[in-house]
């Protein structure tokens, strides 16, 4: 493809690219992939915390979306639709790989750290440790809460956008976030101060 073509592709509206992709146009689909690959990758990574699995799942997400693209009826945006595929893939992956069981054991560990912070109470190390503990605590959240937390807090979606991805109501997203935060702040209370 010439440089001129490439420039033109980046200017094409998403709806047009989707229509072309539905007709089997791989270049149009490649442009859609280019627009969303980083965001999709980051979202999946927040579930897996592992680059090799994330890479596989991101590729699978785009492959699955292309296979199913003829059935995309534009009731939601392409972005919402492909995010839903990525989130479902990630959740299935976590369930299949049995990580949730590991997390259950981890829950106890997290319970313990809530009583005794591991290292010195110096501000810098506390802050660094808070980051690490937060990552672990987010990983150990129940999947429904974790999904809302990842999409809204880490991806910056509104409750409405997350609700469309997760196929639930905005109110549900709001309650899940409230509960996720409640769990996180109680687990990390030694690092958050009184």
């Amino acid at each position, binding site marked *: 493809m010439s440089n001129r073509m490439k420039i033109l592709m980046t200017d094409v509206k998403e709806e047009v690219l989707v229509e072309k*992709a*539905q007709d*089997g146009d*791989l270049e149009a*689909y*490649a442009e859609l*992939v*280019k627009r969303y*690959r*980083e965001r999709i*990758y*980051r979202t999946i*990574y927040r579930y897996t915390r592992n680059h090799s699995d*994330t*890479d596989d799942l*991101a*590729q699978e997400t*785009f*492959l*699955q979306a*292309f*296979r*199913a*693209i*003829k*059935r995309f009826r534009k009731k939601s945006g392409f972005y919402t639709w492909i995010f839903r595929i990525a989130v479902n893939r990630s959740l299935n992956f976590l369930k299949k790989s049995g990580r949730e069981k590991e997390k259950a054991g981890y829950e106890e560990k997290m319970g313990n750290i809530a009583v005794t912070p591991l290292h010195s109470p110096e501000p810098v190390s506390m*802050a660094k440790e*808070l*980051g690490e503990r*937060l*990552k672990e605590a*987010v990983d150990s959240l129940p999947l*429904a809460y974790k999904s809302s*937390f990842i999409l*809204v*807090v*880490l991806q910056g979606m*509104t*409750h*409405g956008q997350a*609700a469309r991805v997760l*196929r*639930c*109501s*905005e*109110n*549900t997203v*709001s*309650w*899940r*976030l*409230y509960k996720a*935060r*409640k769990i*996180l*702040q109680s687990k*990390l*209370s030694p690092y*958050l*101060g009184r």
Partner: protein
Amino acid sequence: MGCKKYEKWISDSLDEELNARRSRKLASHLAQCAACRSYQERLRLLQQEALRLESPDFPPRYWEEFSRNLARRLQAVQPGASDLRLGWRSRGWAWAGAAVLIAVALSLVLILRKGPEAEENDVFSFEKCLDRVYGEIGDDPQLADLFNVALVRSLREGSGADDPVTRPLFVEDPFFLEGLSEEEMEFLNREIEKEIKS
């Protein structure tokens, strides 16, 4: 107990999803509640820290390679040749399964209700009332939809809530009740109790 509502609002406010009326109420509550102020501070710190969490960043070369690999795999794929089983044919099995489960659950409820203890313990139960609704709806998605719409409309009218509620899926969403606000739950309880008395 009263602070639970405000804790929820603090969470919403961090996502900039709290409406003006509630924001004003929250501000005046925070002015007089040290516990909630401290809770808000802790959540703010949590939020800041969460935003600092590692986010993978790769050079453009990585993404070019990603797209190249994908393009190779896409060559062998036709759009529409989906391995996603979302069609009605496969959904049919899911609906049939759901119908059987509902039938079994209803039979169990009916059998249990006939026991002598059932009468003794026949106090108001929110779940029991909903069982009746579930029974009526069965596996009819249109009926479920109609019920959702009617329920949401009456909740809005009754609680005077000005929050936009986006069509909660009552039957499909296990968190539906969890997602209602305190006013909405109170209203729902009141209405059901009234219904039972009459």
